[in-house]
């Protein structure tokens, strides 16, 4: 294991088969259960650049504890639901997108505001939109010679944005459905959803329908909820069923939209 202290040093140590380690909250579970036995690990905890947070560029090594305190509203709300205090101290936003769990609590916000992921290699930097970064269950567009350097949010965030999560308890829970709804001053609505497909998704039909409504009526909200539920593609697994997730996605998105409308 190597412990680089700068980005240049970290990138120089990267190659096929080298496993980047951030907070360890995902990787170490795999190690503890014998699912992986990484021989070559690059510890990123000491890379100062990764902890830099300047405006809309959040360093990949910024932990959930800090996002909970300093992040934009819906991302801070999401941060507060990540694991426990112990997990929020260790876990980072870069690790969250790098693991690319379908249930990642940071993902709905990134989808809803159209964030990008900054990938860096010795050869240079490329900025990949979230929709191209997440390519499948625990699969991303990151090449083995690249590190996730930062999350880039748009310069201007929508005026209103709210995060919500359905799970079996308040703390220490992996989402059954998680969602961010945004609404800007032009009344445009976006809906980012997690845990209802292999990657985070947007509920485009619902967005289009509700963005056309100047002052959404009860009937509009009901139609919005229906379109969100129709637009997701969840599965049944040990945490929930396809039907419940579909229903939950619609209900959750509608409630978050109602909060944005208040």
């Amino acid at each position, binding site marked *: *294991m190597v412990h680089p202290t700068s980005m240049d040093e970290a990138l120089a140590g990267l190659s096929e088969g080298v496993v980047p380690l951030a907070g360890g909250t995902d990787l*170490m579970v795999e190690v503890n259960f014998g699912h992986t*036995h990484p021989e070559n*690990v690059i510890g990123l905890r000491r890379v100062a650049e990764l902890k830099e947070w300047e405006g809309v560029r959040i360093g990949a090594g910024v932990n959930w504890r800090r996002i909970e305190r300093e992040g934009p509203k819906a991302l801070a709300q999401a941060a507060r639901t990540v694991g*426990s*205090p112990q997990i929020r101290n260790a876990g980072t936003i870069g690790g969250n997108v790098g693991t690319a769990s379908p249930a990642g609590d940071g993902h709905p916000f990134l989808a809803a505001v159209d964030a990008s992921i900054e990938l860096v290699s010795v050869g240079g930097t490329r900025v990949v939109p979230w929709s191209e970064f997440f390519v499948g269950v625990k699969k991303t567009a990151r090449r083995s010679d690249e590190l996730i350097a930062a999350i880039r949010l748009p310069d201007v965030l929508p005026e209103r944005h709210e995060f919500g999560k359905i799970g079996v308890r308040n703390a220490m829970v992996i989402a059954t459905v998680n969602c961010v709804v945004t609404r800007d001053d032009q009344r445009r609505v976006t809906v980012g959803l997690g845990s209802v497909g292999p990657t985070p998704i947007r509920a485009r039909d619902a967005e289009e329908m509700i963005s056309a409504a100047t002052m959404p009526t009860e009937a509009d909200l009901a139609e919005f909820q229906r379109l969100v539920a129709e637009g997701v593609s969840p599965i049944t697994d040990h945490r929930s069923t396809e039907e419940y997730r579909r229903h939950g996605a619609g209900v959750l998105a509608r409630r978050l939209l109602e909060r944005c409308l208040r």
Partner: protein
Amino acid sequence: MIVSFEVNGEQVTARMTHPGSLLDMLRDDLGLPGSKSACEQGECGSCSVILDGELVCSCLVMAADVEGSSIITVEGVAPRDALHPVQDALLDAGAVQCGFCTPGIVVAAVDLFANNPSPSVSEIKEALAGNICRCTGYGAILRALEGVARGDDS
């Protein structure tokens, strides 16, 4: 590889042969079995330690990644032969049933009071959200920690 770091104020050196956890190294190689091994996935909090000033689950820290770090385990929250006020309060409140979760609860509570000397009940609950007591003895634990928050003499 060789890892050098500080545990409870003492400099230690351990030989690492696998990508194992800090928890296993503390218990098996360093003679510090206070941190408990249960879920090994960060769910239960019984292995909580303070790593470079932050409360973490030691089962989720790669042992080789603590090079140069400073760690406080439950063995080090108070001077030898003394108890931390949190420990006193838990004893007085009878807040220890089987005792398995207690070390993690102690470390999480010590971390809480270090950062927030008079937390509200909801702040105490939130600070302990990552620590599971399988005996479900949360009532007595909360009463003990509320006493510490009020500054009760134990």
